[in-house]
């Protein structure tokens, strides 16, 4: 793929912002490609992990945040374990997703992972623990795949693999308070 990268883009601050926020030294990457070679999701990615790192070095924040790649990372940490420059690439992917979340940038094609994360966290915020029926129901409803997993869901229910009621005996007020305060603090996303 050929890109024309203008001077303005190269001067964009994303590399510094990422290094400050995540503590990862993106500058150290010398493009050996080991992260991409071991990545189980690379077969689906439009930009490979090492290309994402190069794009950050070149200041291409917009392209990186709206890429499908960052939402395809499975957080398996194989790249992090193998990087000869000791860069935590999975942490960089996390940072980018959190930045995309904060800036409300959605991936170009498929935002299902984003939807899943949102529904999952609502679920935990509300019930304290995962309440599977609500999670699956809400995810199917909002993703407009109403009958997804209908081949296994009733069986799981009969095997009592998913319960009918949410768990009790949790201090839900406390958990909701943690959610509220966490969203305010954010930690790694101080730079605009």
């Amino acid at each position, binding site marked *: 793929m050929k890109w024309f990268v203008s001077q303005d883009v190269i001067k964009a601050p994303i590399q510094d912002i990422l290094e400050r926020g995540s503590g990862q030294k993106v500058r150290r990457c010398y493009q050996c490609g080991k992260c991409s070679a071991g990545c189980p999701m690379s077969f689906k990615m439009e930009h490979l992990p090492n290309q994402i790192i190069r794009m950050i070095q070149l200041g291409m924040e917009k392209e990186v945040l709206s890429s499908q790649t960052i939402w395809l990372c*499975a957080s398996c940490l194989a790249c992090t374990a193998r990087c000869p420059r000791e860069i935590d690439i999975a942490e960089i992917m996390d940072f980018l997703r959190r930045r995309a979340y904060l800036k409300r940038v959605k991936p170009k094609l498929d935002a299902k992972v984003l939807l899943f994360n949102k529904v999952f966290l609502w679920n*935990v915020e509300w019930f304290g623990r995962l309440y599977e029926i609500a999670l699956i129901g809400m995810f199917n409803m909002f993703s407009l795949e109403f009958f997804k997993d209908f081949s296994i869901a009733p069986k799981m229910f009969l095997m009592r693999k998913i319960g009918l009621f949410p768990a009790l005996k949790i201090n839900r007020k406390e958990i909701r308070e943690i959610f509220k305060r966490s969203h305010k603090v954010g930690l790694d996303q101080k730079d605009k």
Partner: protein
Amino acid sequence: MKYAYYPGCSLHSTAKEYDLSTKEVASALGIELVEIPGWACCGATPAHLTVQSLSIALPVKNLLQAKNMDAGDVVTCCAACFSRLKIANHFMETETEKRKEVEGIVGERYEGEVKARHFLEVLTKDLGLDKLKTKVAKELKGLKVACYYGCLLTRPKGVTGIDDLEDPRLLDDLMGTIGVEAVKWPYKTECCGASFSLSKTEIVLKLSGDILEMASDEGAEAIVVACPLCQSNLDLRQGMINKKLKKSFDIPIFYFTQLVALSLGIAPGKLGFDKHMVNPVKLLKKKGIIA
């Protein structure tokens, strides 16, 4: 031996058989597991993809809960919970500035002092395989399995640190101790697709299908796991994998605790074999392991 037990959401739902068999093994070996009262979800992958402070604060909240119980280290069976607890501890130990902000969120001081352990470590390191061997009532001879570790048990280096990153041995050694043959295979630490189970099912079918295929090619009759997400992707979705890849895999996916429990002479009825999608009883009967 006493531990604070953090089951995690999966062990109370899709992985009930893991919870059942863990408790059976623990009580047979004199390991006391005291469940953390009012424990909450660790936030799992969605939290660390969304807000960093939340992904640290939720595990810290649970670790603090355990601290107040005074029951020793926290033990969990879920590789994902284990990873989140370890990462939160590592963060609170090393990020001295950001730590204060997390302490503000949970409303208590915490510097990573409550250790998080995986139940696999408790069996192989705290108790030790030599001691376990003396308690084995019957070796499970004739069973050939592939030990599948997945991603989060061993990675990242220096955080979970329970075994070698590329060629972990803990499960293999444990299986050897109870008489099960662990085959050599190259997919020990490949990824099953993990939390994409709902959001990107087609990817899970491919990745988990590859794992089943490799295990079967290398002569394994079953796969042994230590993570509820690996188990559900390989077991629950095996029928869909067969349909999609036009295969006829019939590979039971065991939790290591289920096989250890059988070797200790615990009745199979107590181990939740009826909660598997791929029936494991057939294979166990064929091998003469259960009647």
